[in-house]
């Protein structure tokens, strides 16, 4: 092995020292920065309410208090569940989060479609994207129903969607 000059040793030593500082600082910093990637959202079930009154073929907005489930504890936020009852087929619990850029869509009776105010995305009554920018159908909240003591059908949702949007 060739003998290093004193100058070379110093230069390499400086580089090594700086590298070491860099590594020491970046491990916690990068780990901290990336932590949301590895942190799971806390899931809960939320009662939305009875859905017996919801008319057939008429999407009806119900409001639920949904815990965010990420970050430091904060009060739950209001979210909309569009309950869609069909004469045949299952009852849907559509989220009103547009699959384009996640604005709040609403049911527009004159268009016979869900309309997104942001860029004019359209979805039909089943939540299928029928026009404009949205790339995929509206997602549903993960949901279930049960019958309560008075015999009403109660809708419950989880604070997550059934599709990745």
């Amino acid at each position, binding site marked *: 092995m060739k003998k290093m000059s004193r100058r070379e040793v110093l230069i390499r030593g400086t580089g090594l020292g700086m590298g070491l500082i860099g590594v020491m600082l970046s491990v916690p910093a990068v780990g901290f920065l990336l932590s949301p990637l590895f942190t799971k959202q806390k899931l809960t079930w939320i009662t939305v309410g009875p859905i017996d009154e919801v008319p057939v073929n008429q999407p009806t907005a119900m409001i639920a208090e949904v815990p965010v489930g990420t970050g430091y504890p904060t009060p739950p936020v209001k979210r909309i569940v569009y309950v869609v009852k069909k004469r045949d087929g299952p009852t849907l619990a559509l989220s009103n989060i547009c699959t384009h850029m996640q604005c709040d869509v609403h049911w527009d009776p004159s*268009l*016979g*479609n869900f*309309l997104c105010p942001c860029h*004019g995305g359209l979805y039909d009554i089943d939540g299928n994207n*029928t*026009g*404009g920018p949205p790339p995929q159908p509206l997602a549903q909240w993960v949901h279930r129903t049960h019958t309560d003591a008075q015999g009403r059908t109660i809708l419950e949702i989880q604070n997550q969607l059934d599709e990745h949007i």
Partner: protein
Amino acid sequence: MNLRILLSSLQPVGGSVLTNGVVVAIVILLHIQIATYITGSSTLAIVSEAISMARKDERHGRLAYMMVKSQVQIFAFGSATAILFVLFLLTGLWAIFWTALQQITFWVMVFEAAFFLVEIVLLYSIYANWERLGNHRRARLGMMVLLNITLWWQMFLIDVVASFMLTPNAGDVSILNQILNPTALPLTIHRTIGNLAWAGAVIAVIGAFNYLRLTRHSRVPTPDAPAGLRPLRSIGAMAVGHLETEAKRAEILHWEWVAQWGVIWAVALSLLQPWVGYSYAKEIQLHAYGAWYTLMFGSLSNVFLIQIFLLGMIFILGSLFFWRRMVRSGAPGAGRQLALMVALILLTLLAIQPAWFAGSYADAVAAGGNHPWWQGGLLNPIGNFIPFKVAALIGMVIFGLWSVTSYATALSRGHIVPGGSSRGAQRTALILGVTVSLMMMVMGVLREHSRQPYTINGEITLHQQITNNAPSSSSVDQGQP
């Protein structure tokens, strides 16, 4: 005021809706071609005159004068067609509809008509005093700007009326709602750009026509001369052999330059049309779903393909014109221009594919052909608007932009030899003019037919029945192929 009571006393003059429609369509299309040229060229005249003043350049000044003169020549005829259809045809044949529209858009129309007066005064005083104002070019330019403003305002106001007919916004007739109805601004921008492009195309046609007229009897330049020198020499040859005077040669150079000026404007401005047209269609989708459906899926969807074809042709013909001039001049970049033309042709072919081989989407479904043609169906997924046509349109715009830019660059570097044009290049310019003209007609037909059976969408039908129901959307199939 109750429209029904007022209008029930009016009876239309006879004639079938069809023949009446044809008559009105012809007169209106004629009027549109003239009026849009006047509006567009009034702006181009200002541009030309301003360049002439800034650069002390004769050609641009002459071109500006030519445009003003042409406006004067056709202004009366253009207004006459307007009067014909407004006063006689519409009042006579569609009295109820027209009276209703007049009632609703009264103030808009009053101002629209009033602008005629201002325009006549301005246009004729500019024209009549052109020479006299030669020493006061700023004043003259100022008058031209005033004229230009009135023309564009007039266009905007008539657009308000036209767009209100398509998207009356649930019959809300307040003035503000008329002026800002959902398609008023998109239509206005669409037409602004279209008028300028059309004016450019007309100028190209005028230049090309005169060029062809003047060179009719001269020999075609010999094709085997060395590239860079050929055009110059051919001019020399023409001057010796066939042109009586230097003046005639100068004339040829001038008209060649005029044609090129027009082509550049026509192509460059059309580049914006896809963006605007798309947003315009989006507004129609949101506010006149039935009309939009007719255009995109229904009976007019195939006519729409003609429109896309014509748009592609504008870019292709432009590129062809540029390429021919560049090749003749031996300009560097001619090969690239050719490649761009090929790309534009391919993209146009992609864009004009029908999405179904039937009259409309509903027909294809009704015939049980609701699957791709390679499975024996009537649908052609490659012809879908999304993503294929949108991608093709984006490509057309980018390559078209490239094509114009590379020609303009060659021009500014002095690589395009004046007098080096072939007659073929000028014929291309003529065809370009025809293409733009056709495009405007098809556009008119599309717009007026899309809202059938209504004249005011959802409010009054072609048969002059007043309806109270908004155009229903539930009656059309909203599925996407």
